[in-house]
C-alpha cells in the first residue's frame, strides 16, 4: 500500500468515526431525568417478555395522557438479569423511582432499606386486604401487590382421557392416589408421562402446611427433617415407578420453562405450576388444561395452598419524586383504564372493582384461572412473606433435592444440609 492511500485510509477512518460519534450522540437523546420545562420524569423498572413491554408502553402512554406533567421512562429487562441490574442501580444511587419486585426480593429490598414506605400514600381500600398484607414488612406497606397466583396442579384432560383415566376428585385426593394415577398413566403407553419433577419451594410449602408446619417461622425454617424426608420420598417413588421421568431427564426439563416442560410439549399429563402459567402451557401444547387443587396428606386438616401476588410495585426510598411515583402505582393497580390495557399480563388485578370491570375482557384461559381461584379462596392459608435471603431458597432446595435424586446423599444427610444452608441464608 502506498503512503498516499494509507493516508486516505486513515482520514476516512477518522472522518467516519467523527460522523458516527455525532450520529450516536444525536440518537441517544437526552440523558438524565431532571425536570425539563416543569415536567418530572419517572423511571419505571419491570421485567418480562416483549409482549409485556408493548402493553406496558401503552399503559405508560395512558398514564402520561392523564398526567401531562409526568413523563415515564420504562426500564425494561429480561427476568434473568433483572435483579442484577436493579441491585447495581440501587448500589450506585441510581434506583428507578418505581420498581417491580416479586415476593422473594421484597424482604431483601425492604429489609435493607431500599424501599419507600407507601402506607397511606397509595389508596388501597379497594385492594384485597389479605393479599395487601403480603406487601407489608414489620407493619409498613412497602409494596403494593398485583396479580394473585396460586401454586396448583395442572392437568391435561385429553391426556388423561387417552390413558382411559378420569379426572380425579381434587377436593379429596391424596398424594398416594396422585402418584398411583401418574404411574398408571405412564404405564399406559402412548408416550405420556404421568407427572413431572418439581423442586419449587411452593410445593414444599404446601406439603409442610398439610403437616402443620410453616416453611418460614420467623427467621428460621419451620420444617422438620421428617417432613423433608417424606417429601423427597414421594419424588423418589415417582421416579422409581416411572411415574415421572428419570433423575437426569427431570433435571434437564427443570432447567427450562413451561414451554419445554412435559406438560407444555404434550408429553405429560399432570404438573405443578403457578396458576398464571396456565396460559403459557395451553398455548405451547395447543391443548386445554384444567387447574386442580393439590393433593392432601391422608388426614390433613388443611389443604396448604396459598395465594401469592405475582409481583409488587414499590417505590425507591431515595426517589426524588415520591409523590409522582405513588401516583403511578396508584394508576397501575386502581385505575380501570390501566387494567383494560394490561388485563392479566401481571396476573389478575387485586382491586375487586377493577376486576369486575375487566372480567369479561379477559381471555378464556384467564377466566378459568379466575374461576378456580374464587373457588378455592376460602380454603387458602395466609400468605407468608419470606424473610431476607429467600431468593436463594429455590437453589438450595434444588441442589439438595438433586443430591437425593442422584443418590449422592441419603435423605437424612440432605435434609440436615438443607436446613443448615437454608437457615444460614435467612439468618444473615
Amino acid at each position, binding site marked *: 500500500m502506498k503512503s498516499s492511500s494509507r493516508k486516505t485510509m486513515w482520514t476516512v477512518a477518522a472522518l467516519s468515526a467523527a460522523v458516527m460519534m455525532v450520529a450516536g450522540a444525536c440518537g441517544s437523546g437526552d440523558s438524565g431525568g431532571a425536570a425539563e420545562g416543569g415536567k418530572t420524569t419517572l423511571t419505571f423498572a419491570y421485567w418480562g417478555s416483549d409482549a409485556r413491554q408493548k402493553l406496558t408502553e401503552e399503559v405508560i402512554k395512558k398514564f402520561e395522557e392523564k398526567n401531562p406533567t409526568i413523563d415515564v421512562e420504562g426500564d425494561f429487562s429480561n427476568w434473568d438479569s433483572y435483579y*442484577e441490574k436493579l441491585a447495581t442501580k440501587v448500589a450506585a444511587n441510581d434506583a428507578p423511582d418505581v420498581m417491580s419486585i416479586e415476593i422473594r426480593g421484597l424482604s431483601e429490598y425492604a429489609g435493607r432499606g431500599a424501599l419507600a414506605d407507601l402506607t397511606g400514600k397509595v389508596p388501597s381500600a379497594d385492594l384485597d386486604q389479605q393479599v395487601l398484607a403480603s406487601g407489608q414488612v414489620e407493619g409498613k406497606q412497602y409494596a403494593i401487590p398485583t396479580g394473585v397466583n396460586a401454586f396448583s396442579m395442572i392437568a391435561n384432560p385429553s391426556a388423561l382421557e387417552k390413558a382411559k383415566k378420569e379426572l380425579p376428585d381434587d377436593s379429596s385426593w391424596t398424594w398416594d392416589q396422585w402418584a398411583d394415577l401418574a404411574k398408571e398413566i405412564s404405564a399406559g403407553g402412548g408416550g405420556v408421562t404421568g407427572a413431572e419433577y418439581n423442586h419449587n419451594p411452593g410445593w414444599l410449602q404446601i406439603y409442610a402446611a398439610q403437616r402443620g408446619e410453616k416453611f418460614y417461622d420467623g427467621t428460621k425454617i419451620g420444617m422438620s427433617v421428617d417432613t423433608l424426608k417424606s417429601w423427597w420420598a414421594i419424588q423418589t417413588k415417582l421416579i422409581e415407578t416411572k411415574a415421572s421421568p428419570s433423575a437426569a431427564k427431570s433435571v434437564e426439563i427443570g*432447567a427450562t420453562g413451561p414451554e419445554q416442560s412435559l406438560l407444555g410439549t404434550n408429553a405429560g399429563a399432570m404438573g405443578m405450576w403457578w396458576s398464571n402459567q396456565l396460559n403459557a402451557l395451553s398455548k405451547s401444547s395447543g391443548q386445554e388444561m384444567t387447574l386442580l387443587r393439590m393433593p392432601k396428606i391422608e388426614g390433613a386438616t388443611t389443604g396448604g395452598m396459598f395465594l401469592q401476588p405475582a409481583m409488587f410495585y414499590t417505590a425507591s426510598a431515595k426517589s426524588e419524586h415520591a409523590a409522582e411515583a405513588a401516583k403511578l402505582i396508584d394508576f397501575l393497580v386502581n385505575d380501570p383504564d390501566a387494567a383494560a390495557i394490561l388485563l392479566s399480563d401481571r396476573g389478575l388485578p387485586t382491586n375487586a372493582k377493577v376486576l369486575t370491570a375487566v372480567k369479561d375482557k379477559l381471555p378464556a384461559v384467564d377466566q378459568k384461572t379466575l374461576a378456580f381461584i374464587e373457588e378455592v379462596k376460602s380454603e387458602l392459608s395466609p400468605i407468608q412473606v419470606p424473610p431476607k435471603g429467600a431468593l436463594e431458597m429455590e437453589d438450595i432446595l434444588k441442589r439438595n433435592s438433586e443430591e437425593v435424586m442422584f443418590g*449422592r446423599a441419603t435423605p437424612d444427610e440432605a435434609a440436615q444440609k438443607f436446613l443448615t444452608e437454608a437457615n444460614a441464608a435467612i439468618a444473615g
Partner: protein
Amino acid sequence: MSESISVPQERAPVTARVPAQPPGRRRRHPQVNVHRRREALTAYVFLAPWFIGLLVITVGPILASLYLSFTDYSLLEEAKWVGLGNYTEMFFADTRFLTSLKVTTIYVVVSVPMQLAFALGLALALDRGLRGLPFYRSIYYLPSLLGGSVAIAILWRKIFGTDGLVNGLLAMIGIEGTGWVSDPDTALGTLILLHVWTFGAPMVIFLAGLRQIPQSYYEAASVDGASRLRQFRSITLPLLTPIIFFNLVLEVIKSFQSFTQSFIVSGGGGGPVDSTLFYTLYLYLKGFKSYEMGYAAAMAWVLLLIIAGLTGVNFLASKYWVFYGDTK
C-alpha cells in the same frame, strides 16, 4: 532454537543512531540520555489513551473492588468492614467455594489444550492449498458466534439431552446414553465440549499468525530441498510460537473466568449437584443473588492471584520455547 535452514537476511550497514553501549554501564553518553528520554516520551504519548483509560476506568474500580473484598456489602446498604472475614470463610467454611475451584480447574486443564489443538490443526488445514478456503474458515468460525448466545442452552440440550442427537446416534449402535447435560458425572464434559466447539477465535488468530511468516523463508527452504514436514517443524512452528503463546496465555485467563456458557446451559445455577459450578458463576451468585458482594469481591481477588500466578509461570517458561523475531 537452532536454525539449520539458512535464512536470507539483508543486513544493510546499520549506522545506529545510538552508539553501542555495553549493558549495565552506569555512565552513559550524553547523546544516549537525550535519545532515551525522547524514546520514553514518545512511548508515553503512544500510551496516553491507555494511561487515561487505566486511571479513570480501570484502576479506580479495581481498587474499589479490593476494598470491598474486606467488607460485607449487600449492594443495597453501606459496606461494613469485616477485615479478612470473607477470605477465611472462603477457604475454611465454604465447601461450594472449593467445589467451584475444583470444577474450574478441571475445565481449564482439559479444555484449553484440546481447544488450542483443534484451532491450530484447523488453521493449518485452512491456510492454503485448497479452493474455497474463506468459505470453510467462516463455517468453522460460526460456532464461536453462537457460543455466548442465549440460544446455545437449548441447542446443547437438543444434542446432549436424554432425547438428543448424541443419544439417538448411540442408540443406532446399541448403546443407551444418559442425559449428558443433567447427569452430574457428565455435565462438565458437555461444557468442555462446548468450549472446544468454539475454537474459531484462536483459529483465526493462528491463521493470522501463519500469514505473518515470510514466504521467502519457505522458498529458501525448498531451494535447500527441505520436505514439507521439515519446513513445518523448522519454519512454521518456531515462528508461530509467539502466537501459540498468546493463545495459551489468553485461553487460560479466559477459561478461568468462564461464565456465560455455564450460566446459560444450567439455567442460572451451578448445574446438577453443582457439577458445573464455575468459579465466576459462583462469584456472580454470591454477589447478585445472595447479596454478598464483598464476598464476591474477595473471590475475584483470589482468582486474580491464581491467574496472575499461572500467567507468570507461562511467561517464565516462554523463554524456553517462544521465538520472537525482534530478538537479536
